[in-house]
């Protein structure tokens, strides 16, 4: 029974971390807003701080939480399905497809018609890629996991070459837009999109949780899971759709934010163990916390300018990963997934 107690402890600790990061994110910025003043300022609709909080910082913090949580949840699920520690939403070619979609939209000039065409193009790009990778990986009616991974990597290469091709034939001002979008940002002013992202991340967490026991059984391999009465095929397919939805939405809203889906689930697994009943929640909450903190860094390091958040997640995540890998005692555990 002490397993239950430690799980409750992990969740409470992580909720505290989320709240701490959120507070930090609300109070730090060009205008410093002390924590104690936040309730009073929120009541005073006339103050400038009220505007800053409700229109900029609260949406941004919520978005950071939802995107960090989603990417990390997607990574945790994918690593479980593939039983491969190097899989993350982006290894499957999803980000490549999304970037290609956005690049195409910018080159053609769709963004000049309506700015919402950009996320839409990203979303479509992501889904076309997933469709390709998925259908090409089905052989004799069964989904081959290794094949899917290889095709995903190849699709990534192809999309990045096509993106370079498009960039080489387009006008210089377009290149700036493309690069900026690829670097990723939580700077999103459309409230409907933020609301959609937050709801989607929570709905997907709940659906993924329904498949928590199949995920646990899949740790023993697809065949063994089937012998334990789990329909591995259907579980994998549904989980795959969930991760695609999460990743596609994240890329559409915030551009490409790498490493969250790879590093966070890993560190979480080392910490709480590989039981998905705690792993999924812990990954979601940790990913949210991680991205909120990274966003605070991105906003403050070279303030008043802002760094692309992908820079921060890449550097912080990459270094953390290398440190983990070089700790030999835990290495075997890490690689075994």
């Amino acid at each position, binding site marked *: 029974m002490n397993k239950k107690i430690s799980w409750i402890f992990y969740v409470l600790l992580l909720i505290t971390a989320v709240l701490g990061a959120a507070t930090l994110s609300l109070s730090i910025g060009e205008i410093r807003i002390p924590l104690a003043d936040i309730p009073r300022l929120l009541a005073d609709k006339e103050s400038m701080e009220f505007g800053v909080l409700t229109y900029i910082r609260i949406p941004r913090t919520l978005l950071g939480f939802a995107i960090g949580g989603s990417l990390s949840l997607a990574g945790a699920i994918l690593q479980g399905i593939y039983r491969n520690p190097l899989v993350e939403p982006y290894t499957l070619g999803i980000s490549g497809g999304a970037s290609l979609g956005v690049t195409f939209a910018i080159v053609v000039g769709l963004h000049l018609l309506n700015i919402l065409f950009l996320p839409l193009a990203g979303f479509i790009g992501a889904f076309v890629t997933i469709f390709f990778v998925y259908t090409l990986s089905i052989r*004799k009616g069964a989904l081959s996991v290794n094949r899917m991974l290889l095709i995903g990597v190849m699709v990534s290469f192809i999309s990045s070459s096509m993106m370079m091709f498009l960039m080489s034939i387009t006008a210089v001002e377009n290149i700036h837009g493309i690069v900026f979008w690829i670097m990723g940002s939580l700077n999103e002013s459309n409230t409907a999109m933020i609301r959609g992202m937050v709801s989607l991340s929570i709905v997907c967490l709940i659906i993924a949780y*329904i498949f928590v026991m199949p995920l646990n*059984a899949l*740790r*023993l391999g697809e065949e063994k899971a*089937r012998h*334990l*009465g789990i329909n591995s095929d259907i579980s994998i397919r549904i989980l795959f759709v969930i991760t695609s939805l999460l990743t596609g939405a994240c890329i559409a809203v915030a551009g490409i934010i790498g490493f969250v889906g790879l590093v966070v689930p890993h560190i979480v697994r080392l910490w709480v163990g590989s039981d998905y009943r705690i792993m999924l929640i812990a990954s979601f909450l940790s990913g949210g916390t991680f991205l909120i903190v990274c966003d605070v860094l991105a906003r403050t390091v070279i303030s008043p300018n802002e760094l692309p958040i992908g820079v921060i997640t890449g550097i912080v995540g990459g270094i953390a990963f290398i440190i983990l890998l070089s700790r030999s005692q835990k290495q075997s555990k890490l690689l*075994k*997934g």
Partner: protein
Amino acid sequence: MSALLAINNISCGYGNGFHIKDISFSLPEGSFAGIIGPNGSGKTTLFKGISGDLSLNSGSIIFDGKDLSSFSLREKAQQLSIVSQFIETPSITVEEYVMMGRMPYRKPFQFFDKTEDIAVAHHYMHLTNTFRLRNKLMTELSGGEQQMAGIASALCQKPRLLLLDEPTSHLDITHQMKFMNLIQKLNDELRLSVIMIVHDLTLAAEYCDYLVMMKDGRVFCKGTPEEVLTYEKIEKVYDTVVVVKINPVSGKPVVFPVSERRLRTFNQKNIK
């Protein structure tokens, strides 16, 4: 007496590759059967046909009077469990691993473990002497210990039929005997039916009460160990010279291999 498992003329295999053809045999509840035959004779393919990993091209498998293909995966997992030669070892504790065997009895949306499930797991861990290892990781165990944990997990499924794919072939004789004696005890006490793929013919004769000998994807012969393990049949199927004697204690056949050089010396001596 109606059979627990009746295999009627099944054929199955891999696409255009290897196939097993027209396999038939039936086993009453409580039997201890061995599948023997050289490498590549189709023993594991037969297991995959029974477990449902390969779909049958023809024939049927009747389990306790019902067609096995009409069982859901979950129903099947409550009747039949499989222990393979090598156990996939994720980095989870032995207790977690054994508990996975209760999976077919979980209700949907049952996220926490029931006390009953934990009690069942602990019971079989005591029986297989793995309870002392419960907090160790599966990856830290020796091969013999992993096999024992595998059996404990399989027993948690409360199966009526246990399929063992060469469970002891990489174990030393101590662990081999411990493992086989445990299976025998389960067979006696719980009337658990067992089908085991086994390479060691002497071990097969000693423990099994029924043997199916396979060659090139077909059943070559079947029956009691005394009927199947004659030197003529073994030499035909395995293409090698052996001597078969009777174990003075158990009265079961013992198969001795004979090396080429010793055979030559023996022949020369006897000709003179």
